[in-house]
Structures are given as C-alpha cells and as structure tokens.
C-alpha cells in the first residue's frame, strides 16, 4: 500500500478538510450560526427548571408561574428544533454539493494525469477515493461542523457566564470538558497506522472479492481446498482485526471522553455543598450552576460518535487532496501547429517508473501516408511507444515530433485531433451505440454515424439490436461479441477523420467469423492515412512500408518484410516461430509439412 499518503498528520488531514470545504464556506457559516442560536435555546429547559426549582426551594412557587415557565419551555423547544433542522438542512445540502463537486473535480483531474499515475495504483484505490473517501466528508460537513462548532461556541459563552456567577462552583462544573477533550485528542492523535491498516485491509477485501466474483469458473473449479478464496478471507480477517484493534483503543479513550463529558453534577455537587457548608454560596447559585452545568455539556457529547471515525475522515481527505494535487501533464502556453503528418521519434527513452527502462533511445521516422508496423515480443515497448504519440505519458529523454513540432509544444486538442486510436480492448461505455460512436466526433450527424458503421461493417448488426443505434450497451442482454465491439471502435475512429491512425493490436479480437469483417473495416479506415500499427500477427503486416522490430525497448531491426527475412535476424526468428506454432495441433502429431513449408512472402504482399 505504498501509494497511500505517508502517515498524514491528523491535524494536517483536518486542515485539508477545511480547504476542500471552502466552496461551501458561506453556507457552513449560516448553518453554524443557526446551530449556535439553536444550541442557546437548548439551555432554555435547564433555565426553566432552575427557575421552577428556585421557586420551589424558596417557597414562592405558584401554578401561574409554572404555567408561564412551561409555555416558555414549549415555545423554545419548537424554535430550537426549527432552527436546528434548518441548520442541518443547510449543512446537508452544502455537504451533498461539496461531495458532488469534489467527485467531479477528481474526475476532471484524472483526465489530466499522465497514465503512469494510474498504473502505479491499485485500481481499487482510485475507486475508493472517488466513492468512500469523498463520501466520508459528507458526515463531517453535514453533522460535525454545525454540531460541534455550535457546541463549542456555546460552551465558551456559557462558561463565561457561569464563572461570573461563582468562579469556584463554575470551575467544578466546567472542569471535565477540557479533560475530556484532552483525552479524546490523545485517543485520536497519531492513529494513522490504524487507519492505514484498516483501509489497506478493506481495499484488499474489496479488490480480491471483486476479482473472485469476476471469475466464477475459478471459484468453482479451483477452490476445492479454499486456496482461491484465501486472499478474500485474509482480507476479511485483517479488516476485522484492524477494526477490533481500533475499537479497543477507542473503547478506552472514547468512552472516557463520553463519561467525562456527561459527568453532570459529579464535581459541582460535593463542591457546592462544601461551599454551602462554609456559607460561601447560596442555594440559588448552587441550583443555577448545577442545572446550567448540565445544560452546557449536553451538546458536546456529539463529539463522541464523530471521534470514532474522525481519523478516517481526515485520512480520506488527505487521499483526495493528494489526488487533486497530483502533477498533471503540462500543457504549453504557446502551441505550435505542425505543417505535416511526418512523425519522428528522436532518441526516445521512457520508463514507467518501476526502475526498468521501457524504451531506450528509440529513433525512427514515420513518413506521411505510409504504413509502419511495430512487432516484437510482449513487453518490448510497442504499445508504450505508440501511446507516447498521444501523450499518455511524456518521454523521459529525447522527443517525439509531428511535422517537426514536439508533441509537448502542441495544444493537446490539436495533437489528439490528428490521431485516431483503436485499442485492443475495445472499451465501450455503458451508453447507447450512438453515444459511443459520437465519442469519435461529438457533432456527427445520424447519417454520418451510419456511414461510418457501414464502412466498419457493423451497421447491419446494430440495426438488428433491439433499439438500433439507440440500444444501451450497458444492458447485459445486448451481447455483442468482442469482434463486434471492436468494429464499433473502428467506426468511432473513422468518425474522427484524423490524418494519423494508430492501431494497437486492433485485430487481436478477431475470430474467424469476424476477422474478414474487421479486416475490411480497417482497410476502409486506413485508406489514404498515415498508419502506425502494433501487430502480433506478422502476416497482417507483411505489406507494410516499414516494419520495426522492438525488443527490450530498443529497435533491433527495421525494414520491409523481405529485407528483414533476408537479414535472418530477430524478425526471421519470429516468423519461424509463427510457422512452427501453426504446425502444433491438439490431438495430432506436429505436422512436419507445415514446419517445412517455405515462407511465401507474396502471401500477404502489398495490394492483396
């Protein structure tokens, strides 16, 4: 869990909370002010009781007087709770707004971060920040701020009054509150280890259970001895242990807080009687301090429950804050516009930050209108290289230029408008087909969508869906195959109408049924454009203008198919591997004929 903030100081977390909540400052002030007035009314019943008791003790109590007192108490109850619910209503709505805005802020921020930021994180952590961590602030804003601010303000004012009535007696009535808060502070100070442990365990539980549920066949077929479910159960155990550990500690100090803050009468009574014996105080003052002392502490008790989760709230705020302050990809102030689509990788080095260099000094040029294919073993850096072109990350060293302009000196909008990217995993949003297509170009007309889909050989399939182009792909019943989803992403890329097309293993999802359709779709897409393609199937790129063999982050070979075969190097090895692989059959002997088949370079030659 090294990516969690490093032991954020408890108070630092609270300062972050204050900063995150700043947009709702005015509403929080209004809410707190209403709460303070309401809290003042909270004292009325105690004052009423005091007056009634005083009259009883003095022997001056009358029905009429009590009726008046009762009326005051009843009226104040109504006023108190009308104000109180108004205060909480305002703070709740403010909290809901802040939570929504923070989530949006985080989402906006995520879109500007280099993707390397994501790969270093457990996907669960980003999700937790967006959901739970932000959500926790809601409790703080909706309840804690108005409730505690009013309780503390009120306590201070009432304390001054009591001290004026009788300092010694007042001290006895007030002494427990500071001690109680000191104890609570002791309990909450420096709990970041507990919070980390509990959060880490909860992340582990969440992530491993989610993983299990995504793969029911693994759960069914490979868990006879419980090994598959072990991490989930371990997450449950660890979470339980962390919560028990924290609860035990709060049971000691949190309970002490609550006991002390509700210790009405405990010190006042003996001190009061002692002062009474000495004749230093009268019965009325004793009654007053006795009752008001109880009254002023009542609101403070609300810190008890809040304290239990305060460390989590503060920690969550720190996580969200760290996310909001992460370094975005820098954007230039003076964007330059390239004059051509010639792509140049100039001595490009890049590392994902895990120590190993993904690309080491890659130099090559992609001529406009040409097909350039990157091949090589997995982990060679092919996908990273083509993604650098769209600034998913920035290079560590060297430069990538389009038409002579460094991609970092172009506006991001311009840079992306020049490229259409098709990825292997054919990600589609849980949205309508049309909305997914308009991801390519938001102002595309229905006719343009249809045209692109026809060209991508997917129009007929879409019209066969229950609601055609308006079918929601989020519905599990839609059931498009991987190849069909891929063709939608190709249509999406066509709508983009960009001069440079980047295919990152875009043909990988093809099964025999789809392969021909995907191939024609791609052929339409790339016509007349500069094509950069990452390919696993060597046969698909034999006709490329330039094949670049990457291995270990370096260009090991470069040239046309026949040149590379003739060079008898790494490409030749891969080609032979492919031929050998085609000869391995299930249930049959390895077919010697196929292995021995001479390579027919013309098989996939240009123009086929």
């Amino acid at each position, binding site marked *: 869990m090294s990516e969690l903030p490093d032991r954020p100081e408890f108070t630092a977390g609270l300062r972050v909370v204050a900063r995150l909540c700043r947009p709702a400052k005015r509403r929080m002030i209004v809410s707190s002010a209403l709460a303070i007035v309401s809290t003042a009314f909270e004292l009325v019943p105690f004052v009423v*009781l005091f007056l*009634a008791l005083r009259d009883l003790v003095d022997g001056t109590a*009358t*029905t009429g007087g009590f009726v008046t007192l009762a009326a005051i*108490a*009843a009226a104040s109850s*109504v006023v108190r*709770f009308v104000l*109180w619910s108004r205060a*909480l209503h305002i703070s709740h709505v403010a909290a*809901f707004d802040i939570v*929504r805005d923070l989530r949006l802020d985080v*989402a906006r921020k995520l*879109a500007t971060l280099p993707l390397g930021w994501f790969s270093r994180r457990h996907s669960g952590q980003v999700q937790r920040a967006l959901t739970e961590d932000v959500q926790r602030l809601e409790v703080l804003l909706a309840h804690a701020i108005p409730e505690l601010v009013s309780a503390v303000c009120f306590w201070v004012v009432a304390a001054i009054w009591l001290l004026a009535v009788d300092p010694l007696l007042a001290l006895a009535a007030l002494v427990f509150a500071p001690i109680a808060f000191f104890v609570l502070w002791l309990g909450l100070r420096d709990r970041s280890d507990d919070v980390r442990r509990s959060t880490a365990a909860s992340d582990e539980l969440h992530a491993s259970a989610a993983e299990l*549920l*995504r793969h029911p066949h693994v759960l*069914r077929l*490979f868990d*006879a001895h419980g090994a598959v*479910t072990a991490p989930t*159960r371990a997450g449950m155990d660890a979470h*339980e242990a962390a919560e028990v550990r924290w609860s035990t500690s*709060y049971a000691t100090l*949190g309970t002490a807080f*609550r006991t002390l803050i*509700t210790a009405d*009468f*405990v*010190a006042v*009574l*003996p001190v009061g009687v002692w002062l009474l014996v000495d004749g230093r105080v009268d019965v009325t003052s004793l009654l007053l301090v006795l009752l008001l002392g*109880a009254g002023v502490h*009542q609101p403070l008790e609300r810190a008890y429950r809040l304290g239990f989760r305060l460390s989590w709230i503060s920690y969550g705020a720190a996580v969200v804050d760290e996310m909001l302050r992460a370094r975005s990809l820098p954007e230039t102030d003076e964007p330059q516009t390239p004059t051509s689509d010639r792509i140049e990788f100039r001595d490009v080095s890049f590392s994902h930050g895990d120590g190993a260099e993904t690309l080491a000094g890659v130099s090559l040029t992609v001529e406009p209108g040409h097909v350039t294919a990157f*091949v090589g*073993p*997995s982990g060679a850096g092919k996908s990273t290289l083509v993604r650098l072109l769209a600034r*998913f990350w920035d290079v560590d060293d060297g430069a990538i230029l389009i038409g002579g302009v460094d991609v970092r000196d172009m506006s991001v909008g311009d840079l*992306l408008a020049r490229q259409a990217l098709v990825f292997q995993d054919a*990600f589609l*949003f*849980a*949205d309508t087909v049309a909305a997914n297509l308009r991801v390519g170009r*938001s102002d595309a007309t229905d006719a343009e969508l249809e045209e692109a889909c026809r060209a991508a050989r997917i129009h007929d399939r879409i019209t066969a869906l229950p609601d055609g182009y308006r079918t929601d792909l989020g519905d599990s019943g839609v059931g498009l195959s991987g*190849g069909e989803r891929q063709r939608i992403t190709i249509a999406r890329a066509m709508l983009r109408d960009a001069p440079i097309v980047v295919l990152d293993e875009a043909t*990988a999802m093809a*099964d025999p*049924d789809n392969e021909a359709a995907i191939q024609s779709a*791609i052929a339409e897409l*790339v016509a007349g454009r500069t*094509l950069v393609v990452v390919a*696993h199937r060597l046969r698909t790129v034999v006709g490329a*203008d330039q094949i670049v063999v990457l291995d270990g982050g370096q260009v090991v070979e470069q040239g046309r198919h026949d040149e590379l075969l003739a060079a008898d190097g790494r490409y030749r090895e*891969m080609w032979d591997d*492919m031929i050998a692989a085609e000869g*391995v059959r*299930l*249930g049959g002997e390895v*077919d010697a004929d196929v292995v021995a088949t001479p390579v027919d370079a013309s098989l*996939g030659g240009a*123009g086929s």
Partner: protein
Amino acid sequence: MTDSVRRLLRLARPERSALLRGFGANMIASLLQVVPAVVAVVVVVRLADGETFSSDDVVVIAAICFGSLGLRYGFARYGNGVLWVVAYQITGRVRRDLLARMKAAPPSATSGDNAGRALTVLTYDAGKLAGFLSWEMPVLLAGAIVPVIVLIVYAFLAPWLAVVAAGVALLAIPVLRFGIGRVMDVYAERRRLQGEATERMLEYVRGIDVIRAHAIAGERQQRFAEALDGIRDADVASVDRLTPAYSAFQSLIDAGVAAIVLTAGLLLADDGTSDSATVSSLIAALLLTTVLFRPQLDVGARALHLPELAASMRHVEEWMSLPAIPDRPIAHVTLTDGGATVEFRSVTAGYQPDVDVVRGVDLAVPAGSVTALVGPSGAGKTTLLRLVAGLLSPRTGEVTIGGADLEEMPAAQSAALVSAVFQDVGVLSGTVASAISSADPGVSHDRIEEVARAAHIHDRILELPHGYESVVGEEGRTLSGGERQRLGIARALCKNAPVVLLDEATSALDPTNERLLREALANLVRGRTLLVVAHRLETIRGADRIVFVDEGSIVESGTHDELVDRGGRYASFWSTREQAAGWSLAR
C-alpha cells in the same frame, strides 16, 4: 423496521452471550448516570426542608458522585470493549458465511449483474451490521431503559408526572415512525442511484484511456455529473422528507420538560402554600427530568439509521438464504471410466428466461478424445463448456460425466472432475506458485515446477524478480496475455482432472508466445478428455472430432478431412479463415 433489529439479533445468535454482556454493561453504565442526579435530588430536597450539611456529608456526596463516575466508566469501558469487538466479529463471521454461500450457490447468482450486488453485500452491507450493533443499539436500549426506571421513580413521587412523561414519550414514537417510513422509499431510490453513479465512476476510471485519446473528458464528465446530480437530488429529497418529522419528534421530547413543569404547576396550590411533601416530590421530579429525556433525544437521531439497517439486513438475508445448489446429494456418486467421458443428452440451456442459447444438444465425448467445438460467435460453444464446468444448469436434458448426471453429484465431486482454461483465464493476484497450485495448495514445489515446465512458463517465471514467489498483480496484469494463459494451463495441469475444458483465447499473441502456448496446450491434453472451443482452426485440425455449432445446435460433425470433403458449413468456414490469413495491411 424494528423487525430488522430483531432479525439482526437472531443472526447474531452465536455471539449472543458477548452481545448481552456488552449491552448489559452499557445499560448499567446508563443507569449509573442517574446516580449523581439522585444525589442532587436528595441534597436539594434537604435544602428545601431547611436542613444543613456537615463536612462529613460533603465527603459522602463526593464519594458517591465520583464512585458512580468511576463505576460508570468501568462498565462503559467493559461494555464497549466487548460490544465493539463482538460487533466486528459478527461482521467478519457474516462475511465468511456469505462468501461460503456464494461459492456454493449457482454461479449465475454471483456473476454478471449480480456480481456488483454480491460485492456490496460482502463489504458494505455486512459492515453496516457492525456499525448498528456498536453504535445504534446501545443508544436505542438506553433510550428505552433509562426513562422506564425514572418513570417508576416518578410513579412514587407524583403519579401524574409519570403519566404525563409516559404520554410524551408514547406520543413521540408514532411521529418518529412516520418520519422513518417517509424516508424508506426515498432510501431505496437513493441506493439505486448510488449504485448507478458508482458504476459511472468506475467506468470513467476504466475508460480513462479512451477518454484521453478522444479528448472527451468534458462529455464523459457531463454524464458523470448527471449521475452525481441524481444522487444529490435524492439525498436532498430524503433530507427534505425527514426534516419535519425529525423536528417534530425532537421538539416533542424536548417539550417534555415543559409538560412536566406544567403538570407540576397544576399540582401546586395556587397561593404558594403547598405542603412540604408536595414541594419535595416536585423538586425531585424536576431535577430528574435532566436525565429523563436526554437518552430519548439521542434515539431520535439514531433511529434514522434504521432504514439503512433494514436495507442491509434484507440484502444479507437474501444471500444467507440462497439455496446452496438445490437438493444436492452429500454422498459421492460412482462413476464409470474414472469420470473421463462427457455426454450431453438433449440439453437445452440459457441465461435469461425464454432465451435458449443451447438447443437440444446430444453429444458424446469419449474418454481420452479431443473434441473441438467450432462455429460463429454467439453459436453457444462457450455455453456448452460452461455446462460441463457446472457453471450453468441445463433447463432440460442432462450433462453427464462418467455416466452420472452432474446435477446428481455433490458440487465438490463434479468440480473435481473438471479442469479448465477459459478465455478470461482468471489469474488472481497472489504469488505465481499459489496461482499454479490453486486447486491443491498442498502440492510439492517440484510438482509446481513440473507443470510450469509443461506449460512452457517455467523459464519466464524464473525471469521474474522473485521467481515462483513473485506476486502477479491484480488480474495477473504484470504478465502478458500469453503468459497469463500459460499460467492458466499450468494451473489446469496441476489440478490433474480427467476432463479438460479449453476456451481458446481469441486475442492474438506475439509469435513466440503463440508457439509456446500451443505446445503447452498439447501437453495439457495428453491423456485427458478434451473439449475445446477453437477460434483458430489450425489448432484443431488434428482433433478426433470437430463439431460445428450454430444457433445453439449441432450442425455437423466429423474429422477435419471429412468435413472439408463434405463441403458444408465447416468447409466454408475453413476457406474464409484461409483467406483471412492471407490479408495484410498496406497502402
């Protein structure tokens, strides 16, 4: 609503004694809170009677007050210590039970749309139980017990006060119930919207590549913002609905003091000449109101959590009562051929009601043979494999292994007969060694290495930073696709089951990985019954039998040569495939 509390307590029966101790100690602590108030009553009454105190009295008063405080802390500390711990233990136990049930339940209950719900129950809903038991329950109990005790005291002091106080409390309850009832329906809607917005958030994170590449962050954020507005509006609606009832309840309880003062006034003689006994009892009663209504005010705030508990309880119970695969026998069934023959007998199956994905399939797969399923996407090939894996039950007909119907076998027995490598390999996070030995964690390291060699992944594993002890990330993402598949093959080999299911991945691998993978597969098959869904026909040219499936039915079957000679569906499929292989990207 209160019903959900009862059901929660029933669910917590195994921990009953600890719960009782925790609640009991907490209640004793709540009652001890009344002690200083009682001392105050005695003091004030004696003062009213004109009595005086000595310094000895001061010591006694101090001793009682501080003694009760100490005792109260002791009981509360003990009570919370026990209660909070047992509450999390209950959540832990419920989570483990739920997981065990999810494992035993038909896979459809925990996959697809249900997966999200299953996860929420395991994490959020089970967690709610602990929160309610540790925080809401003690408050609700104290709110019920303390007033009852004080009311009994009132009954002795001035019966009318007891009647009025009880009346206030009873009047407030329906108001609270009404308020909670109003939130219940909003709450269900809110939970649904929350789920939807969470889905949007996760989609946004998952789709960040596409969002970045198309510079459409603004538009996607718009969608996301709409979902967030939905939650916000539902939240505001629930607060709007709750506020009047909540204020009314709190005002009523708070006005209880007014009612008591009013009653006390009515009990007084109008001219200030009440007898001292009346005055004393009223003093006592009025002082006790400081402790009477306080716990009930808390109840108002805490009771608002009841709808959440009710929802979480309902979800937990739904899963707790899931039929663990219905009517499965306990005893193992005797099998023929060591459980290596597979047969489909007029099998019809599907995922949604009324939609059959497999229609009346009859197919016998002899022990030790290789049978390949071929056909267009959506033909039902993968579903046939899922039926053998027991991930889906036939609607009609039966699937047998070793001559016995899978439905008639204990789940553990049928699961033991089958090993599988599916398209989604499902390499879970953990060490490489633990991933391979999933099915049998007790297996020796030599055996793990042996199967890794056979799966052609051994050399690659040794290149990892910690060899077999290296941790593969979430979804095995530190490995490439081909490596994950070979690890899946090693895992399948390690299980050593008589029947192997293979759903060949469609995604292309680099040529070296592809060769290693195919050789690994050849090793996996040796000596076992194999049912394979093939996407690349080259792989299965040598199969004993190729079955062409379309629209859930078997169209034709035979060896490769037979089918090609026949010139039917398979033959045309084969020729399309050959054309596709010759395709190339070029200007």
